[in-house]
């Protein structure tokens, strides 16, 4: 297929037409920059921290937020990575991220489960599981969210950018609807958790309208080094089932995922903005929590 805008061969077919490498790169960057400005994800006074993993999404976010900051003369972003301590997985992606940050001159900060909670995920999991039956991802998610927020605050960041993409968001919308988790729906969106606790750093998702496929193609054409690795703890979760269904629908009916997101954005205007101002602090670590002891400290207490 030929590019919509020139006579070169296309590398991707989008809903509005096919694009060659250079026209795709321009299209992708424009889309991300438009998301940032339209939803006010980053402003001139923000200090941006990118929650990075070394995967395709976080490298793309890091690269484009840096480019955006340079164009607008905003403060440059910093990167934060959490090492969960998962053998055979995280070490590789940390190396990729270190290389990338070195090459692009981005300050990189690291935090680890081991340092914060005394044990790697691999060590903590069997102990906590024997008492609670919790899966690795339950522990990993709680501790990672905790450390990302804490780390961003320590860097004095006003904005925490994540690599969440269109696929992630469409999955989350569908999951919350199918499980009737209405309370969680207002937390989605390009700028989630607006108007929450002062101790939560504002989260933003510059890749909100970019599919996994587009992002992978972007990193490939930009020659970012991204190794394909999968966490050994990945299971065929509810989310993975939703992902598979959405991909089947998308293949048959192109535009399905974008339609899910756009419907959600439309409906979400009907929700009142949540003001979680009454949230308290953990009596052990002082981080924000709606319980006396936060989830992260509760898990740590079992070790």
């Amino acid at each position: 297929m030929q590019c919509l805008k020139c006579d070169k061969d296309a590398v991707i077919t989008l809903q509005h037409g096919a694009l060659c490498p250079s026209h795709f790169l321009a299209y992708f960057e424009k889309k991300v920059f438009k998301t940032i400005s339209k939803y006010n994800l980053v402003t001139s006074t923000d200090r941006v921290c990118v929650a990075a993993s070394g995967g395709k999404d976080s490298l793309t976010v890091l690269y484009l937020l840096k480019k955006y900051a340079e164009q607008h003369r905003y403060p440059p972003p910093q990167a934060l990575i959490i090492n969960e301590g998962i053998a055979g997985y995280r070490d590789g992606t940390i190396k990729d991220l270190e290389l990338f940050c070195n090459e692009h001159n981005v300050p990189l900060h690291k935090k680890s489960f081991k340092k914060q909670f005394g044990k790697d995920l691999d060590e903590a999991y069997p102990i906590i599981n024997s008492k609670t039956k919790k899966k690795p991802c339950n522990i990993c998610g709680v501790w990672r969210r905790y450390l990302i927020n804490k780390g961003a605050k320590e860097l004095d960041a006003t904005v925490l950018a994540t690599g969440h993409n269109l696929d992630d968001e469409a999955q989350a919308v569908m999951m919350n609807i199918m499980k009737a988790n209405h309370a969680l729906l207002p937390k989605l969106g390009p700028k989630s958790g607006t108007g929450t606790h002062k101790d939560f750093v504002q989260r933003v998702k510059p890749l909100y309208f970019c599919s996994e496929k587009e992002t992978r193609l972007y990193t490939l054409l930009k020659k970012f080094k991204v190794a394909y690795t999968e966490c050994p703890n990945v299971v065929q979760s509810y989310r993975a089932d939703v992902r598979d269904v959405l991909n089947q629908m998308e293949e048959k009916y192109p535009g399905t995922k974008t339609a899910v997101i756009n419907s959600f954005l439309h409906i979400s205007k009907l929700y009142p903005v949540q003001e979680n101002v009454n949230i308290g602090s953990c009596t052990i670590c002082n981080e924000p929590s709606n319980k006396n002891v936060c989830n992260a400290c509760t898990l740590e207490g079992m070790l």
Partner: protein
Amino acid sequence: MVTVHNEKTGTQHTTKRGSVKEILKEININSETVLVVRNNTVLTLDKEVKEDDVLMLLSVISGG
């Protein structure tokens, strides 16, 4: 025959020649989940793949 390497599974298939779309269908891969590369060039689904071509499937889904 066409040889198809899969980055994610590390496996290799051989299939009849045809369009990229037909080949993915033949080996049961959803076209939303991969980029199809031949000689360092990404192919769209309509592209015809010739006899003896070698394809690489790059997974677009990151794990973890």
